[in-house]
């Protein structure tokens, strides 16, 4: 296909990718699961960016969310429960040329993988991180997750979960060197697409918490939000998301928030009564560990050999 370059000259690309080029196996998520919409958004963002499928890697842990790589037609790594981030960071560290996506969930990221979550935010490697947060363990069949709302009955807490849910936004925003924090709901296509696209374009780790419906185990959580739009607040800003009026009509509670204002973002995140949507924080200038860790990758074999001999010299007698 072709397009116009910045200098108005015609750019002829030998490859043009359609949505189909990013589609892998037929998704096996339940009917009505919010994951379908997220996958569609990912395919679209890949298409928009014309990512080369062979240069794209989707990394996941274990859980419903973590099936995502199988539904991509790119490279993928479906690893261990909670451990998507270290693997993704290792890939990016050696191969900065690859476009890395991480699909994880509330159990995978906020519970068993919590240590990696904290540190991956600090590393701030250039990747897109989508947390599919449905507030329940789905794949293992309805156990309490760190974000299960209070009093929701589960198979591990039949009389209702005991503890108030973890607030992933305040935690993430509190981590030094965090550079992009956003939140969306799975059921608004425009917001979903725009925020995931911005997370992808962001230089650093684009963290998106996606409130995602699980109609099989905790239908009420999603329903309650859908029925009460006032419980959500859409954050708009010229440096954040800009949505058209159709979206604003769906979220009557909306207002401006400057995503460069970290204290304001923390305040918004800490307010449990309203669920903020949009970009809470964005700092394109935060240092990225992939740039620090990949220095030296271009060294030739001859240079390495010379370096090795220098190292031997340090011990020579």
């Amino acid at each position, binding site marked *: 296909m072709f397009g116009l370059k910045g200098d108005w000259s015609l750019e002829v690309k030998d490859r043009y990718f359609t949505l189909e080029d990013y589609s*892998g*196996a037929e998704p096996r998520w339940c009917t009505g699961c919010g994951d379908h919409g997220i996958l569609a958004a990912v395919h679209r963002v890949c298409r928009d960016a014309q990512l*080369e*499928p*062979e*240069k794209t*890697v*989707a*990394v996941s842990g274990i859980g419903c969310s973590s099936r995502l*790589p*199988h539904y*991509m*037609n*790119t*490279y*993928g*790594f*479906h*690893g*261990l429960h909670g*451990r998507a*981030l*270290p*693997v*993704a*960071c*290792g*890939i*990016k*560290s*050696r*191969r900065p*040329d*690859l476009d890395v996506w991480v699909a994880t969930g509330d159990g995978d990221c906020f519970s068993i993988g919590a*240590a*990696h979550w*904290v*540190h991956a935010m600090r590393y701030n490697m250039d990747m897109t991180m989508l947390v599919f947060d449905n507030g329940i363990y789905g794949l293992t069949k309805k156990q309490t997750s760190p974000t299960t709302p209070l009093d929701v009955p589960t198979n591990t807490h039949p009389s209702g979960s005991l503890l108030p849910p973890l607030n992933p936004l305040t935690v993430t925003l509190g981590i030094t060197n965090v550079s992009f924090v956003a939140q969306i709901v799975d059921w608004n296509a425009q917001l979903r697409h725009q925020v995931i696209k911005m997370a992808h374009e962001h230089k650093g780790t684009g963290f998106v918490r996606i409130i995602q419906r699980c109609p099989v185990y905790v239908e009420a959580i999603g329903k309650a939000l859908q029925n009460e739009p006032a419980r959500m607040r859409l954050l708009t800003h010229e440096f954040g998301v800009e949505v058209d009026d159709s979206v604003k009509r769906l979220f009557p509670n909306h207002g401006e928030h400057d995503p460069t204002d970290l204290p304001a973002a923390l305040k918004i995140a800490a307010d449990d009564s309203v669920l903020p949507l949009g970009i809470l924080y964005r700092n394109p200038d935060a240092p990225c560990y992939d740039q620090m*860790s*990949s*220095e*030296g*990758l*271009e*060294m030739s*074999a*001859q*240079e*390495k*050999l010379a*370096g*090795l*001999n*220098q*190292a*031997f010299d*340090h*011990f*020579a*007698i």
Partner: protein
Amino acid sequence: MSGKHTQEDTRYLFKRDKTWWVKLAVPRELRDVLGYDLRRSLHTRDLEEARSARWDAIAEFREKIESATAEQIMGSTPSAAAKREHHEAGHQIVKEHTVEIVSDSGEGAQKCGQIFGLVCGKMGNGVWTVEIIPAEIQPPARERQGASGIRVRMGSHYVTNMGDQADLVVAFNEQVLYSRIANGAYRKGTVVLLENMWAEDPDEKIRQQYAEALQDFYAQGLIVHELPIQKECLKLVENPRRGKNMFVLGMLCHIYQRDVDKAKEEIAKTFRKKSAKVVEINHKLFDAGYAFARDNLDYEYEIPSADDERLASAIVVNGNQAAGLGVMAAGIDLVAMYPITPATSASHYLADDFNLTGGFVHQAEDEIAAIGFAIGASYAGKTACTITSGPGMALKTEMIGLAVMAELPLVIIDVQRGGPSTGLPTKIEQGDLLSTLFGVPGDSPKVVIAAATIAECLEFVSVARRIAESFRTPVIVLTDANLATGVQPIARPDVTEDWFPPPLDQSDWDEDVPPYDWDEETGLSERPIPGMRNGEYILTGLAHNRQSKIAYDSASNQEGAIMRSRKLATLAATLKPPEVHGDETGDLLIVSWGSTHGAIEEAVDRARDAGKSVASVHLRFLSPLEPGLEEIFRGFRKVMTIELNYSDDPEHPLINKETRRYAQLAQVLRSHTLMDIDCWSVVPGHPLSPGRICQVIDTHLGKLEGVH
């Protein structure tokens, strides 16, 4: 004594920090009883006064000698406390010597020994140096358990282990000697050069401790020479706590006739980051120590150079530095680690030099993340390495299983320490063999190799990387705290570009070839690397088919398991049987693995020199095992392993055929060969000495007698 003071009459006199002392040599036959000489202070700085005062003392000394002679003639035995070992004076040529320098921590004993070891290496001796490390970072001073120091074994042959009891010890205080004595580090006749400042310490308790310790040491047969090291150093520096070590280095360099210029060159190198003034004062301290030993000690040793090609062009490294160099030589450019003793110093070294070969040390948030990061790198086409120790291995278990299941190349270095749990962080044990072989749930075939020497700590990383890539598997390299802290000159490896992996392949993948295109015969397959067009696949830790699609069906699961296991058989087919050290038939065969190699071969050599029918065989590959073991074992009446891990004592009343738990390699070999392989193993936290192994050999050969 040399004749330094002969210009004037200083007969029987010597000066210690400006004060005159009197000294009378004890006749050789009485030195067991009275020590090398009798001496005492004359409490004067005036030479004339000393000259006249000496005669009373000399008379008193002569009386002592006469009565001791009389006692000896009458055949009475001196009391144990008074019995002193005999020590030869003069210039002696010896084949090897083992020296220890022990002090409170922070007094620089280790630096002193390191430089001494380097100088010995430069002079062509075989050398093994090992640090004596207290458990705490800053233990209190003069604490029996707080010994910090170093052992240097040097010889006219290539030295492969830390040896038996020390021949000579320099001790900065008397208390630190106790933990070494408890470890069996000394023998009757070991010469102790002891700092004597404590004899005049203002604290009465310390003076008393010192006096009591001296009696203890004599009773144990140590030859103690009390030396005024502190006082001599005070002539040059205000605080000899820093600097005393260089004085001691000077003493040792005289005692062992080391090259002064080489030693000074090493001192300058050691302090190269400090000012010229620092180098100068350390040189002065060195000279003072050298002169002091020359003027005050009447013995010196010569250890002729070893004629060994490994020493011709050598690098002097410990096993962890060797592993770090091995990573670079293997062309690996990522080590992901989490701090853990005793593995971390490998990463410390790499953090210094890794940039020379374009590498990076990633300090991860935990052990799991460390191996996860390495696995990510390997998946992306750059085989990476993670370095850890036992507890870290336990945490990495699930990730190792993933690498096995997904057939990812990966190099895992396990620097073993004492276990289980936190165990003995700084000390050696060969306790991780079974857990590395079998510690992953499900069937988890992987390659496990064990370095026997410091040189192999370097080479085996390269071997591991190549096997990992060719066989698409994680490879575990076992080393241990003995190798990690032992320092030895090893032959400088001749690394060429073909040690490095080929450049990252980003050519198009044949879309008709699935990501697990298993060869039925060998189990081997090629893998697509991200970036390769048409190679896109989703790696999964779930059971999968050739297409890497999740496959829970019986046939796919069985096929995957077969293919992963088949690779080990394929690798085994490329291995050669291990070589027997000694005759290929005989009474007793010792089987060993890992860092006990040097001590065991040395013990076997000694036993064979004494006419005993014993041989040894050392295994480097533990999974798969090297071929031909059963045939080798059949050449001997008895086969046993000697290991540094736990096994039950077969003599205990509760231990019988059914209850006995064998040492780890013995367990493996018993199931592998169905032969009745015995074992002897202990968990002392320190390496085995050749002497101890000789005793084990004698005991087991003894049991064989009469069983003809």
